[in-house]
Every structure is written in C-alpha cells, then in structure tokens.
C-alpha cells in the first residue's frame, strides 16, 4: 500500500549537509498497522512527512495505493493540484493535534471536506457521523480549547478520516498523551484499522505502541532502516535489537563459568513448562535473571534470560534441548556486546 524505494533526504543549511534519510526502503502491506520506531533524530518524522510529500525527498520514490507521488510533485515548495488530490486521500494525525482553535470541533472535521468542495449539508452529515465513530457525538459545538488531550486527538483522527482515506499516517499521535489515554487512542486506531480496512503507518518512540497495535515494525537509526518485518518475524530473529527493545530482559551472569541464555517463547511453546523440563532432564540448576511476558499482535510472547551452570561448551546439549522444543535461544554475551551486534546485522538480512 505504501512503498518507498531509496528514499533520501538531505537538508542543507549554510555550508553543512545533514542526511535525515539515507536510502530508506519501506513496504507497508494493505490493511496492516506498521510502526516505525527509533530515537529522536533517527529520521522517523522526516520519513512520514516524505510519504505525503510535506517534505520533498532529495531522491527516491514514494508510492501510495499504486500512485507514484514523487512523480506528481513538480518543482518548488508549492504542491500541484494532482498532488493535493492525492494527499486528500491520505489521512494524517499529529502529535500536537493541530486543530484550528478558531473553529468548533465539527467545523474542524469539515475543513478537509471544504477543501474537497463537498456541499454544506453533506459536510455536516459526514462530520457528525465521524464524531459518532470516534465517540465524541456530544462535542460537535465545542471548541478545541474545551477538550482534553485525548478528546482532541479523537477529533484529529475524525478529521483525518473525513476524506475517506485508505491510508492513515500517524506522527507520534500518542506521545503527548498519558498512558491511559494512549491506550484508548491506540484501541481506536486498531478498531478503525479492522472496521474500515485502513492501512496505518505510525511513527513512535514508545515500544508500548508497537506492542499494542502493530502488525509489522521497522527500527530506524541514523536515517536508515536497520531492521524490519512482521512483529513475529522480528521476535523470531536471533539477536534482533528490536525484539530486545520490545522485551527488555536484564540481568548479569552471577560469576565466571556461567552461561547466560535468552529464550524467546511464542505461540504453543509459551504454554509449555520447558524450563522445569530442562532442569529435570539434565539435572541442572537454572536461575532466572529476568523475564517479560506480553501479548503482541494478539499472540502471547515472552522472553526470559536464564543462567546455566558451566561454560557454553558444557551447555550445548541443554541449549539444543531448548531449541528442539521450538524455542528461540540466543546465547547472551553480557561482557562483550560486540558479537551480538554482528549477529543482529546478519539477522536483519
């Protein structure tokens, strides 16, 4: 639904050049919720602004719903009629809501329809229908200043849906909200994704968001996508950095001659008592250093960091046993993290 190829954005200020995007290839399938995560300055914001060409990419192409937007762009900062029409079919939700304080809630939602030239009666009908959809039917005549943050974002979402888009872009839409409101907004996005078949591309720095609603995710660093795939693929990737971020498990080896192993459970395996089986079968003592268990994209997933007595060489057989049970096992080298990084790069390929 959304495809970018070799997307590059270079900012020039004075004599200096800053590369915000460095050859980003992204593929978002129809009907999925795709999350792009990364720290501030990783290029997430630039990426999402390039998708509807609010930022002109320096090179590369953006295709949304089969239409090559970069070909419509034209020169200069002004958007031509064709690009504007294409944009009206892409909804966008913002971190700071960006509602017009001079307009009522209803009138804010009508704005995109005004731009599309929809008649007054039809605008009103559509706006009220959308307000109902986002659960704010009683706030039509209120001004944005009278709403809470979560309510404002609901209005923002209703406004983004006014042009019946197939694609919704969400630019840190929950970052200014408290955890509870974040959950309700994410739930709303999930519902819209399922009810309307809306494709959602969201950027966020909160792993919680990815865990809660994303089908697929990508990790950005320094303007590049360093890892991407469906959430279950990512969790199944040995040494995946994104998986480790989604499920941070801590803990250091308690001494030398110990082997620390990260075990990832999903699906069936998550319900099996594998650790106690391991302990009984090989008669070894296992200590659990850290563990996390959660539901990701509707599936139960967990990660556990365990410590086995003895060096790695002595534990080849127990580790093999764990792998046989369908678990993904990564031997963590807690002292020198460099090899883990090397593993990650191979995993990403």
């Amino acid at each position, binding site marked *: 639904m959304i495809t970018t190829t070799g997307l590059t954005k270079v900012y020039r200020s004075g004599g200096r050049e800053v590369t915000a995007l460095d050859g980003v290839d992204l593929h978002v399938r129809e009907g999925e919720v795709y999350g792009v995560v990364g720290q501030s300055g990783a290029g997430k914001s630039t990426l999402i602004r390039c998708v509807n060409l609010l930022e002109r990419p320096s090179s590369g192409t953006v295709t949304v719903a089969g239409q090559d937007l970069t070909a419509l762009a034209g020169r200069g900062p002004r958007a031509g009629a064709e690009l504007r029409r294409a944009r009206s079919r892409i909804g*966008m939700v913002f971190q700071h809501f960006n509602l017009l304080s001079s307009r009522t809630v209803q009138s804010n939602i009508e704005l995109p329809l005004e731009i599309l030239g929809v008649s007054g009666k039809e605008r009103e009908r559509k706006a009220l229908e959308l307000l109902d959809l986002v659960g704010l039917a009683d706030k039509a005549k209120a001004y*944005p200043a009278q709403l809470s943050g979560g309510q404002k974002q609901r209005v923002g979402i209703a406004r983004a849906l006014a042009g019946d888009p197939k694609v919704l872009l969400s630019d840190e839409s929950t970052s200014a909200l408290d955890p509870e409101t974040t959950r309700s907004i994410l739930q709303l996005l999930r519902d819209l994704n399922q009810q309307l078949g809306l494709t959602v591309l969201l950027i966020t720095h909160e792993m919680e968001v990815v865990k809660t609603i994303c089908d697929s995710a990508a990790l950005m660093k320094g303007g590049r996508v360093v890892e991407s795939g469906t959430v279950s693929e990512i969790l199944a990737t040995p040494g995946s950095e994104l998986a480790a971020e989604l499920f941070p498990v801590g803990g250091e080896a308690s001494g030398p001659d110990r082997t620390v192993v990260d075990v990832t459970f999903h699906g069936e395996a998550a319900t099996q008592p594998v650790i106690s089986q391991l302990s009984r079968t090989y008669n070894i003592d296992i200590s659990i250093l850290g563990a996390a268990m959660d539901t990701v994209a509707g599936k139960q997933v967990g990660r556990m960091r365990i410590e086995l007595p003895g060096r790695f060489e002595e534990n080849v057989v127990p580790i093999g046993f764990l792998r046989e049970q369908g678990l993904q096992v990564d031997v963590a080298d807690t002292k020198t993290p460099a090899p883990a990084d090397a593993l990650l790069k191979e995993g990403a390929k």
Partner: protein
Amino acid sequence: MQPLLRDACLDTLFMVWWSTVWAVVGGIPLGLLLVLTDRGALLQNVVVNKVIGVIVNLGRSLPFIILLVWLIPFSRLIVGTSIGPSAAVVALVIGAVPFFARLVETAIREVDHGLIEAAQSMGGGTFTVIFKVLLPQALPSLIAGLTTTVIALLGYSAMAGAVGGGGLGNLAITYGYMRHETGLMNVTIVLLIAIVTIVQLAGDLAARRLTRRTGRQAQAVGLRRLWAPAVPRPRTAPEAAEPTKAA
C-alpha cells in the same frame, strides 16, 4: 464654537475612517506577503520579500509630518487636490499601511506552523492556508493590531492641519494654542480621549470575544492595558490541564 467643533470632529472621523479602511486593504496583503514570501514559506520569493521589506521600512522610518508635505504632489495626482481632509487621507494611508503591515506580519507569524502542515496534508493549497488557517487563526491578534493602528492614525491626523486637513488636532493648534482659547483646547483633548477610549474598548471587546472562544491569548498591544482588564483565562475542560500542558 459648536459648528467648529462639530466640523473638526467630522473631519477627524472622516480621515481616520478612510485611512483605516485603506490600511486594512493594503496592510493585510502586504503583511501576508511578508510572511509567505519568506525563506521556506509557501510562496518563497526572496526578491519580492526583500523589496516589500524595504518599502515597509521606508514608510515606517519617515516622520509623518515630513511624509505629509512630501506627498503633496502625489495627493494631487490621486485625489485631485493637495489640501483638505481627502489629501490628508492619502498621506495617512501611506503612513498607516506599512505600520499595519508589520503588525499583520507579526500576527500571522504567531500561527502555529503545524496548522499549515495539517491543512496541506488534507490537500489544501495556498488559498486554503491563507483563508481557512492563517487569517482566521490570527484574527484576535489582527484586531488588536488594528486597534493600535486606528489610535496611531488618530494621532497622525492631528498633523493634517499642515495640509489644511482640519480635524480636532488642527482645531486645538489654531484656536486653542494660537488664539489662547484654553477652554476649546481642553474640550478637544477630552474629545480625543473619548474617541481613543471608545476605539480601544471596542477593539478589546472584539479581540476578547474571539479569544475567549478560541482559548488563545491575543497580544496585548500598546495602550489597551490602560483601560482594559486583563484578558480572562480561556475555559478549558478540567481534565485537559495536564495533557495540554505537555503538548
């Protein structure tokens, strides 16, 4: 004395009214252009931006009394006469347009860039951005700026006597000062204060109405604080306090 005062009042109102009308007609497009042609803006055009900037600065830097006499040939060209209130209006407009244009520029620049981005993401073009986002969002500040402009024009119009423009200022100089009619002088002063107060109150009332509705503070400009109480805090939903502060 009565007809003198009445005529002077009417002359002043005539000059202020028409120069205000033209200041709005000229100042809003100029102020918008100053913002829109700036680097990185919608209609980026460095040449136009610089030219308008220079013209506006020139208009602002000339003392009004000089502008008034310097523009005499121009006034004759435009309104067919170089004396009287109509001629004074020409000079007042030339003086007020750059003044108001700068205030418009400031008001427009205050509009959050995110709102422009939102309008563009919906497929809005330059027209939409100007008429549906920039002007409505800046309205409280524009009204506050207009109030300041009207009061400045009232001050400028006192010099209109130099080209036979009449008005209250001229009356105070010719009768009050030159003929030592202190009573008349005091009456004109009271009248001027009354006009300024009415304009200021009307402007504040309009700005405050919009501000209360939109929850956005108009900039307190110039004299308004002397007469008007502070703009009340916008009404907000109680649960809005935290998230909006974070935003």
